[in-house]
């Protein structure tokens, strides 16, 4: 397996608050990698650095072994990293296809003038959704009228649109019911089948053990453990998070 993303010694402070004090994260190509830790451990902050939303105070980020500077969301997208944030990711008042193609709309030429190519965007949106086994008929429906699971699917389609190789999902199931959570788990499995690397932030031990190949646990802005999920039960995982077990537990 090859390393697709690595973060070493990431530091980030918000005023007096040290959100990250030297965190590491190593993700291998094609895996589902869970990022866990208690509230305020620094998970979202770490993801913000990787998605170009915030700039690190220190540390290094490398994609496929090459050092990168992800100074804005655009740079991260260009590096193949797309992030699905917990909120604020979609424009609820806009249509499904507009959300999927937001920021990278398809165009055609009309008398030499570039104009939006709606029918192409609608057709492509359908294709992306089909590739996720997600059923939505009207691509012109507003996102605010979709279920939580469907919104995640739309957000994933946007990431696919960017040809993202790494998709980061920040607590995708936090606000979802049982059935919708299962839907999102299926979406993640589907992404993995399609060769996409997924980083999953989650407080749900069940989700992590159900879908992740490896897990990294943060505590107080530092990486505590990084290990395979093989043989890990939800109970054991929450113990590791709460008690901050040591790497000795790591079977590999």
């Amino acid at each position, binding site marked *: 397996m090859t390393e697709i993303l690595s973060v070493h010694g990431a530091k980030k402070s918000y005023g007096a608050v040290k959100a990250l004090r030297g965190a590491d994260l190593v993700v291998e190509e094609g895996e589902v990698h869970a990022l866990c830790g208690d509230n305020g451990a620094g998970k979202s902050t770490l993801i913000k650095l990787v998605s170009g939303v915030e700039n690190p105070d220190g540390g290094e980020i490398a994609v496929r072994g090459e050092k990168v500077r992800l100074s804005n969301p655009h740079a991260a997208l260009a590096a193949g990293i797309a992030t699905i944030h917990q909120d604020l990711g979609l424009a609820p*008042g806009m249509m499904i296809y507009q959300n999927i193609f937001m*920021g990278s709309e398809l165009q055609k030429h009309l008398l030499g003038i570039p104009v939006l190519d709606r029918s192409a965007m609608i057709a492509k949106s359908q294709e992306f959704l089909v590739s996720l086994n997600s059923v939505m008929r009207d691509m012109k429906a507003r996102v605010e009228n979709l279920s939580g699971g469907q919104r995640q699917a739309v957000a994933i389609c*946007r990431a696919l649109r960017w040809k993202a190789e790494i998709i980061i999902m920040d607590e995708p199931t936090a606000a979802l019911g049982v059935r919708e959570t299962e839907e999102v788990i299926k979406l993640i499995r589907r992404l993995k089948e399609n060769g996409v690397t997924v980083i999953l932030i989650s407080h749900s031990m069940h989700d992590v053990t159900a879908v992740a190949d490896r897990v990294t646990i943060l505590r107080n802005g530092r990486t505590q453990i990084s290990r395979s999920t093989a043989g890990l039960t939800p109970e054991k995982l929450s113990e590791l998070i709460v008690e901050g077990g040591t790497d000795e537990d790591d079977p590999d």
Partner: protein
Amino acid sequence: MRGFVAKYGTALAGLAVLVFFLFFARNFASSANILNILKHATFLTILATGFTFALLTSELDLSFANLASLAAVVTGGLIAGGTAWPLAALAGLGIASAGGLANGILVTAIKVPSLITTLGTAAIANGIAFMITGGVAFVGRWDPLFLSLARGKFFGVPVLIFFMLGVVFIAWFVTKQTKLGVHMLATGEAQEAAHRAGIATSRMKLIGLTLSGVTAGIAAVLLVANLSSAAPQMAGDYLLNGIAAVLLGMTMFEPGRPNVAGTFVGALIISVLGNGLVLFGAPYYLQDIMLGVIVIASVSVSASVLKKAAFSV
């Protein structure tokens, strides 16, 4: 059915008002009066279209009327001083556009809320306009070619109508058919989401506010050509009229969202209402009351959407 009423209700009500005046307001249907209405609607539409662009990115522009007045006295003053009118018109267009650009820079780079920024630039523009004129109007016998911009006819149709339709068409095209248009919309609808999708949201706001200045400049030149004079407060009345047109427009076609078609119909309705009320013998102050009611009623109709936008400063 409810969708139909939400989309077209206001336009149909406007049509009913028009028919009512056609039948019951004396002289309303005379060709001179219709021309008057269309002239007013032209200036109003052009100015309100700029406001629509700004509001689409969720920013307010309260300076467009005073920027137009300033552009008018710059244009009129230069012509009165002997400058060739095309240059004078360009200067007017330039000063209003620069004002819009200044609004955009203050809002996006220095992060002064647009409500405050444009209130400030409105006052500044007003002050400069009075400074330039010394408080009196520029009047003169100006080049007929210049005046024909507003008074001329083309195949029997007033040239102004072409300006109005031209601005509406271009604005509709930009907002509905181009990448720039959806990026501006996304910026206004969900700024953070748009930013994270790689859209340059600050630039979109800058463009929206600048375009509001550009249309103020266009309207100003036409206003000067129409009156063959220029005075410091000549576009002042268009502020509330323009805002009302845009807000009324937000109750049409795409409920809750600033849209060019809605702004256009809104401007027509307000021009018809204002004119008809006067012909109907209604006292002048009733117009102000009407505009106030339109502004508040429109916003309350589309309140759910506006809550997150510019009006919830």
